[in-house]
């Protein structure tokens, strides 16, 4: 099949590009993905794969909730290598103050159709016995889940024509590859994650580095995805460096340990001091981790926007080229919602989500 005959060309085969590919294929359109490296090998290979509802803003809640519903609807079809598990998220309150702060959340979540439960000290211990004794309580979101994103990206992109190449320039409904080749399509989608700024320098997207550690197999050691309630503070800290306790049980029995956030670091090397801080934090919450073995450490870059919402819309000034980037720490979750927004935009349909919330024009620097 020739690359330049597709109805839709998606640039980037991360989870976001792959989700878009699937969504357009299901509309009966032909899709080509241009990827310079591997399918699911960018931030998608670095992420934790936590499919989670987050309540930072109404728009974020709506997008994560809708995306989680879409993941749920795919469950019967997901092949085993995607390792889908409904683990639930257990937000851990270290002290009474953190528990107090979260007390209103249950009503907030339930009003928006997401089951949630407040746990006191005792029920927290029953739910997750390996947490350090003395934690004040927790907030449980039982229907959040965990997936293995690189295989999910490969699965979502099935049926698309995948072309290996580096895109150097994107125009309205067309693009140019490094080898000089020019491709045209009815619709072009730029889903190049943190590298979107290479193609659209005006975008307010900055790389935010994260470290992760994975352990050997310790089946049953942890039941839920565990995150400290201080996480949001870390996620929003304006400072250049922060860590938060974030531990995820994998289907393999391994534990994936996060998370760190850094602005202004471009080098992808694993940094000793960040690992030390991150693991130290994790051991404070989960003392048994200290004796476990780390198999690997790695880093990845989140594509961060100033308001923590992705940019999912027509590229300002163009009529056939769309942007799908800026998913920060939630792109594995929100990939499906993103794809839905784009399909509905292209097809001219109304949808569940309010499209303007995610439009590029909300940023001054994007207006033309």
């Amino acid at each position, binding site marked *: 099949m020739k690359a330049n005959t597709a109805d839709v060309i998606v640039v980037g085969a991360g989870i976001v590009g792959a989700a878009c590919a699937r969504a357009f294929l299901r509309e009966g359109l032909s899709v080509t993905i241009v990827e310079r490296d591997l399918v699911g090998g960018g931030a998608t290979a670095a992420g934790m794969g936590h499919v989670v509802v987050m309540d930072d803003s109404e728009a974020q809640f709506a997008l994560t909730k809708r995306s989680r519903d879409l993941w749920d609807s795919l469950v019967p079809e997901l092949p085993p290598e995607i390792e889908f598990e409904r683990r639930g998220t257990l937000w851990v309150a270290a002290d009474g103050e953190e528990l107090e702060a979260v007390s209103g959340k249950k009503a907030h979540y339930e009003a928006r159709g997401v089951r949630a439960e407040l746990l006191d000290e005792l029920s927290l211990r029953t739910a997750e016995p390996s947490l350090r004794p003395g934690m004040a309580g927790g907030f449980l979101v039982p229907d959040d889940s965990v997936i293995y994103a690189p295989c999910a990206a490969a699965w979502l992109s099935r049926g698309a024509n995948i072309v290996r190449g580096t895109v150097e320039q994107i125009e309205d409904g067309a693009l140019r590859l490094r080898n000089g080749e020019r491709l045209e399509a009815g619709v072009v989608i730029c889903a190049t994650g943190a590298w979107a700024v290479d193609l659209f320098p005006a975008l307010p997207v900055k790389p935010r580095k994260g470290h992760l550690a994975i352990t*050997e*197999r*310790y089946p049953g050691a942890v039941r839920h995805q565990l995150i400290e309630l201080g996480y949001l503070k870390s996620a929003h800290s304006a400072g250049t460096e922060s860590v938060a306790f974030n531990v995820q049980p994998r289907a393999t029995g391994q534990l994936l340990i996060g998370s760190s956030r850094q602005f202004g670091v471009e080098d992808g090397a694993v940094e000793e001091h960040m690992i030390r801080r991150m693991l130290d934090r994790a051991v404070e919450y989960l003392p048994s981790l200290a*004796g476990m*073995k780390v198999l690997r450490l790695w880093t990845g870059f989140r594509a961060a926007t100033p308001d923590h919402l992705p940019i999912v819309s027509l590229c300002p000034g163009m009529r056939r080229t769309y942007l799908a980037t800026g998913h920060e720490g939630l792109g594995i979750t929100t990939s499906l919602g993103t794809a839905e927004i784009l399909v509905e935009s292209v097809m001219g349909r109304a949808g569940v989500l309010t499209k303007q919330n995610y439009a590029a024009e909300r940023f001054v620097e994007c207006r033309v």
Partner: protein
Amino acid sequence: MIVNGVSVDVADGVSVAAALMQLKIIPRRALSGEARGPLCGMGVCFECRVTIDGQPHERGCMVRAREGMEVRSDEG
């Protein structure tokens, strides 16, 4: 050395992997359930992994058997 709850005598300087092999004890069951034994004898293949004194995933070939050491294998 105590292997799967049974006390056994092991000479000085014998590795846990060699001792288990001598006793015809399978250290590890693979993910597929297949029985595995030591392959490289030098700490690179991780096929000789056992639990030593409560610590899982230890390479038996890199550890000297010692008096009172508790070794657990995937299969007796």
